[in-house]
């Protein structure tokens, strides 16, 4: 299922793009993230725990930058399996699009497509549908806060 969140930041695209180049900081905005390790250029290992109702699972994901179009868009893809809690695996494609706004800020559109497989996918389907929306919303809010903090600090 595909979910989209949009928010604007009153920092110019150049600043926002600079933030997004630091994938580690981006990954830290993922709700429930515990650790982010660099595996190689544009490849990361992200450990994140998600709680859906009573089901909880800790996913170890290999995240990869699929495409970078400076100041315009960034695409990531992740594949992972649960290492603790409910058995399941996760695939997600996340795309971030940037657009300068007339007031000099940047409109950021986050599009993510999450597929949860294995037992968790089969049975957690009902709960996951509403949960993914919440995860993406929180991810967007965390990004927004992180960018603004970065801006203020500059």
């Amino acid at each position: 299922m595909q979910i989209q969140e949009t928010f604007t930041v009153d920092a110019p695209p150049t600043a926002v793009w600079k933030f997004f180049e630091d994938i580690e900081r981006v990954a830290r905005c993922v709700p429930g993230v515990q650790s982010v390790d660099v595996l190689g250029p544009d490849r990361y290992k992200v450990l994140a725990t998600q709680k859906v109702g009573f089901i909880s699972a800790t996913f170890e994901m290999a995240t990869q930058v699929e495409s970078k179009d400076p100041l315009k868009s960034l695409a990531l893809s992740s594949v992972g399996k649960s290492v603790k809690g409910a058995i399941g695996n996760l695939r997600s494609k996340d795309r971030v699009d940037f657009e300068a706004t007339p007031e000099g800020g940047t409109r950021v559109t986050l599009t993510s497509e999450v597929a949860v497989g294995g037992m968790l996918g089969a049975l957690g389907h009902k709960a996951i549908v509403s949960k993914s929306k919440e995860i993406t919303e929180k991810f967007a809010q965390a990004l927004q806060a992180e960018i603004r903090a970065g801006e203020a600090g500059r």
Partner: protein
Amino acid sequence: MDKLPWLGASVKRKEDDRLLRGSGRFLDDVEETLTLHVAIGRCPYPHARIRSIDVTRALGHSGVEAVLTGQQVVARTEAITALRPFAGSAPTAFYGMAQEVARYEGEPVVAVAAVDRYVAEDALELIDIDYEPLPHVVTVEDALRPGAPQLHATVPSNVVVESTVRAGEPDRRLADATVTVEGTFRINRVSGAPIETRGVIARWAEDSSTLELWASTQTPHLLRAQLAHCLRMDETDVRVIAPDVGGAFGLKIGVYPEDIIAALLAIDTRRPVKWIEDRTEFFRGAAHAREAVHTLTLAADRDGTLRALRDRYLIDLGAYHGPLGPPLLTNVMLAGPYRLHDADIHRRVVLTNKVPMGAYRGYGQAESNYVREVLVDRLARRLGQDPADFRRRNLLRPDELPFKNVSGVTYDSGDYARGLDLALSRVGYETFRARQKESGQQGRHVGVGMSCYVEFTGYPSSAFLGRGGARFGAYESVTVRMDRAGRAAISTGVSTFGQGTETTFAQIAASLLGLDPADVAIHRGDSKGTPYSVGGFASRTMIAGAGAIEKAAGQIRDKMLRIGGTILGVDPAALETTTGVVRRRDDPSVQVSIQRVSEAAFLGYPLPPGEDPGLEATAYFDPPSSAFGYGTVVVQVEVNARSGEFALQRYILVHDCGTQVNPMIVEGQVQGAVAQGIAAALFEELVYDRDTGQLVNGTMVDYFMPTAADLPVFELDHLETPSPVTPFGIKGVGEGGTIAAAAAITNAVCDALAPFGVELDRLPVTAESIWRALAAARAKG
């Protein structure tokens, strides 16, 4: 030959006593000491490359004896062969385990053998598998799209096989016909879903260095042949035993990957190895069925004479060619019971990243009946004719049979119109049509729908199958042996999975030997000690089995008459066997017990000169041609035109399966098949998410098998037109009930909503699908 005493008798079943007491012996009830239990790790993705498997932690887990990976399986075994491949099918190497690439969610990737299933599953979680998900396709349309991911290098553009069957001049007929209708129909992917899942126990017999395999199977001998081939063993060194089987419905035919896995683990560990399929594995491993997309065209003249048929259809095969293969009878039975000489049937079998497809009660006949009978109703409506009248005009008359249909098979006998009229009279069709207009006012719409079918039962001959490349014959075989107590024992390779063969076989043998069925024991399902057998499927067992028993028991009866003649000093020609004795036909007081005769055979005295001792015969019977049952289903529904909700008010089936060996068992088979027909028509569907490629409802909670509260009372009636081409005029009956349900219900709903011009063209029929069809009809205006 006077009428056989036990033929047509509703004898209570021999199988019942042990099953009712709970002392039936199903696969998981077979327990041996030192047995290891297998848990199988399965690919969670619809399509993925397996980059690495690390089993070290699992091997170290206490209680784990062995771990098996795809690399070992592929190295040590052959790919699974297909029992009934379509001619010209491209190979899809289906091994016991995926090695580099897994092609459907659920494909085995690793297996653990441990002291018990709980420990084996704990160990599975310690195995790290690095998957690289690959692009997938879960619809036939996506699989055929240019640039679609190719599942097998050996199968260009994902089309395993393509075929065309033509008869007459379809193109000219279609062009000349005054009325043509066309429809595209989507048939749902379903599962036979017996209450007992699959299971296997493999044991390496050290003493005889042979492999013993207990399996929940309908075809012990075919499984034995296929498994031996996969394991690169001679068939002589493999024995398959089918204990009681908890339902099968076509899904437990042939060898499965798990049989190969269990066998390898047993050979490696030198201990019995048991795998019991749990229900989530079942929905991702046991054969799925029926999914197809048909674009059908029918043409008729102004007066309602059916002229031609053209069908373009795609079968969704799943990721591999399974142990049996896709349904073949869709092609063969598409024309149904109608007088049609011109047809063009084009079929493509397409690969998708889903569980491989196999047979399910009807093997293509429910699919072809659905598309034809729904379009026949639309054609009749287009011509302004009553659907019943249109059918009466086009149904083959008894005098036109035997009739060779457009696909080349010959219907033997039957009175198709009488079946239709009988069913319509039960629903009070004439008066119904009148009342229907008046009751349509308050938003409640009542409709009657019908569907006529001819059913292909049994195979026409081993030659027919052999010419088609089948890896099994059409015959069946039995060994009949008397014992000193004067009782008989039948040894058959046909296992017991609910169809009542133990009882019906005993009835036929008893009738021929002059015994009571209670005096006929049945040894079944064990490839050791039974003659080569094909097994229980395709509504063939009764036909072929009865023929084999007739020959074997006949030989024994004749020998008993000769021995009786010697003991009584009477010409054997004047004797008969009946009620446990051999006696003079014209003077019953001159008699000798069958027990005494049997004892003579085993003492070797007194015997006619030159007669060998013993009273035993083995016989094979190859049916000369298949028999065609037929019938009509008439359904009455009431539909709420606002919500789409509907009630199945009446379900009437009139069928003809020729001579009935045991009417009680026949009725049970028909009721069970009707229930599965309604289940696939209204409730069940295996749903794959197109984006993620995953099976969305792979549990019993979300796969809606109907309960007793979901099904109506079925009103059954039958005609009995013996077949001229089978032993005792028997026709198969196991599958008939499933064939016409979907079309009859669809036609009834469309009839109820005729004022709105509603057309339904996908299964299952649900309240939501009716609501959407109503909205579509309104949009069309």
